[in-house]
């Protein structure tokens, strides 16, 4: 953005009848030099965590290029060398079934990240529509819809997930994304609803509606630009949450089966690895998982912005 802004002089604090009749409301008097103007001290500042972004980008790139980094079938079982410690042939060792952990990390990372993104995309769409309807709707509908979210929030999501998973039958990437997506929307929906509730009486929304703007039009052009910044943090956190939930479920045997490689399902036969002390089977996929989650948390926290608190009195 340019450092210069058009300097407009407000002629009248309130529109008079003459203005409403079409008279000029602002007079352009020249360019305003913003260099010397004091920047606002309070408020939230976004400082991007470049290290986290870089690490996450490397992991994501590695997963995208999995076929180049580790060509061949990642689920190929070298039955002659199960649970082999890291060596030249297998940089990260092999698991109990003789599969190369190095190849599985990159191929499995695709699945884990994809589930995170898919689940979050779904939950964000649900949350935005739900929150907008609740915020823009009549009071009784709003109360009812917010009650539903509270009930939803008070049940441990793991229970709902297990139930839904049981109904949908054997898990695959899409079904587990759907399950995680439909269970993680309430927090975002609440924020969207609050923002919409504040905005819906503002002049431009009323004007837009008067001119015939439909629900989707108002949502996309007027509500979304306002609540996007406040939900970005939660969206990133939801990606993180979905990846963590997928790994927990797959580990417990309630998520992806062993054949569909993800960072979670790689850990699902960890108990047998524990008995033999094969640390690489447990530590390596987990480290990738945790590093990804930490990077996402840092990015999410940065998006939320730092609070400038000012001097302490103590």
């Amino acid at each position, binding site marked *: 953005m340019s450092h210069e802004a058009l300097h407009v002089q407000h002629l009248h604090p309130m529109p008079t009848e003459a203005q409403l009749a079409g008279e000029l409301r602002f007079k352009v008097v020249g360019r305003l030099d913003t260099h010397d103007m004091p920047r606002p001290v309070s408020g939230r500042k976004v400082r991007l965590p470049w290290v986290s972004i870089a690490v996450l980008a490397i992991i994501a790139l590695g997963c995208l290029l999995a076929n180049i980094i580790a060509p061949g079938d990642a689920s190929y079982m070298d039955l002659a060398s199960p649970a082999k410690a890291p060596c030249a042939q297998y940089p990260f060792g092999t698991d109990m079934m003789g599969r190369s952990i190095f190849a599985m990390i990159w191929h499995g990372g695709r699945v884990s990240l994809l589930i995170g993104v898919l689940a979050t995309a779904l939950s964000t769409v649900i949350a935005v529509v739900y929150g907008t309807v609740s915020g823009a709707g009549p009071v009784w509908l709003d*109360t009812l819809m*917010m009650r539903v979210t*509270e*009930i939803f*929030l*008070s*049940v*441990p*999501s*793991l*229970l709902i997930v*297990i*139930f839904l998973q*049981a*109904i949908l*039958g054997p898990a695959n990437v899409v079904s587990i994304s759907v399950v995680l997506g439909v269970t993680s929307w309430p*927090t975002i929906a609440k924020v969207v609803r609050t923002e919409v509730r504040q905005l819906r009486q503002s002049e431009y929304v009323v004007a837009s509606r008067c001119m015939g703007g439909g629900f989707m039009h108002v949502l996309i052009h007027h509500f979304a630009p306002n609540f996007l910044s406040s939900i970005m943090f*939660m969206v990133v*956190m939801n990606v*993180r*949450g979905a990846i*963590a939930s997928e*790994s*927990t479920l797959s*580990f*417990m*045997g*309630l998520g992806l089966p062993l054949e569909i490689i993800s960072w979670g399902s790689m*850990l699902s036969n*960890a108990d047998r690895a*524990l*008995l033999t*002390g094969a*640390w690489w089977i*447990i*530590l390596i996929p*987990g480290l990738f*998982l*945790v590093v990804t*989650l*930490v990077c996402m*948390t*840092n990015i*999410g*926290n940065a998006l939320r912005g730092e609070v400038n*608190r*000012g*001097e*302490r*009195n*103590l």
Partner: protein
Amino acid sequence: MTRKNWIPYLIKKLAIFLASVLALSVIVFAVSRLSPGDPLVSYYGERTEKMSPAERRQTMERLGLNAPLTTQYVRWLEGALRGEFGISYKYKQDVLDVIAARIGNTLLLGLPGFLLTFVLALLLGILCAWREESWLDKIISKAGTVLSCVPEFWLSLVLILFFSVIWRLLPSSGAYTIGKENDIGDRLRHLILPMAVMILSHLWYYAYMIRNKLLEEIRADYVLLAKSKGLSRGQILFRHCLRGILPSYISLMAISVPHILGGTYIIETVFSYPGIGTLSYESARWKDYNMLMVLCMLTGVVIIFANMLGQIINERIDPRIRASEGLEVPTNEP
């Protein structure tokens, strides 16, 4: 709130509580019956496959599994009101007996873990706020963020790997060594790892909250006043600032119950700890309907009760909060 309003208030809360529990029971019942999977398998195991269709029908009849859902629900509810929840298909025992044998273990792990988490989080939060922006605060904050990202199951695996498998210091599973059921020391040794996971994975979320609330609090004007009166930093922090945030912390403890409970269930499963969590997991996997229903109801009732308690505390602290405005429920994010 005046004394006169107490009774209608309590009655209203009780009514909401009962309505929630009833709604919960309908949902849990419907979902558990609609989900696929053969409950006969959990009852008879492999033998189910050898049953003739006629035998199957008879068995379903005897167990009351082929009546319409509404009839099954009413039958279940009648039994529940008399304290009969049926028998576990898997354990072939009264559901309540199986639960009773294990609930002590869960309480033994859960209650001290829950309290320790909140006490340690409080201390850590105070320490960070006291030394704000110092290297100590920064290191703890960074370490805390990383720790709060580690999934509970993986933290459990790593601790088991190091403490049980590699260093052979602590037991990796169960609640006691067989033959040492009454040895307190042995039981405590089995509790160390699960409880460590429980505390470590939740600690920072709450400590961070305390830290931020305290940082807001020590910027209030009354702190200046107290300082000018000659109070020491410690006196101001502990007598005034802390007092301002404690009530909301206590209500937060109540609201956090579902969050921590969910985590405990995972931890119990990883450590094969014979508690309610492992039991829930098993009954979900083996379609042990009666057991699953009672466990879900039990969990749900605890959660509804805890939420309500948090709401009541919040309303007492700040009368402006009306029940309809709801509460902030903690999520996984710090």
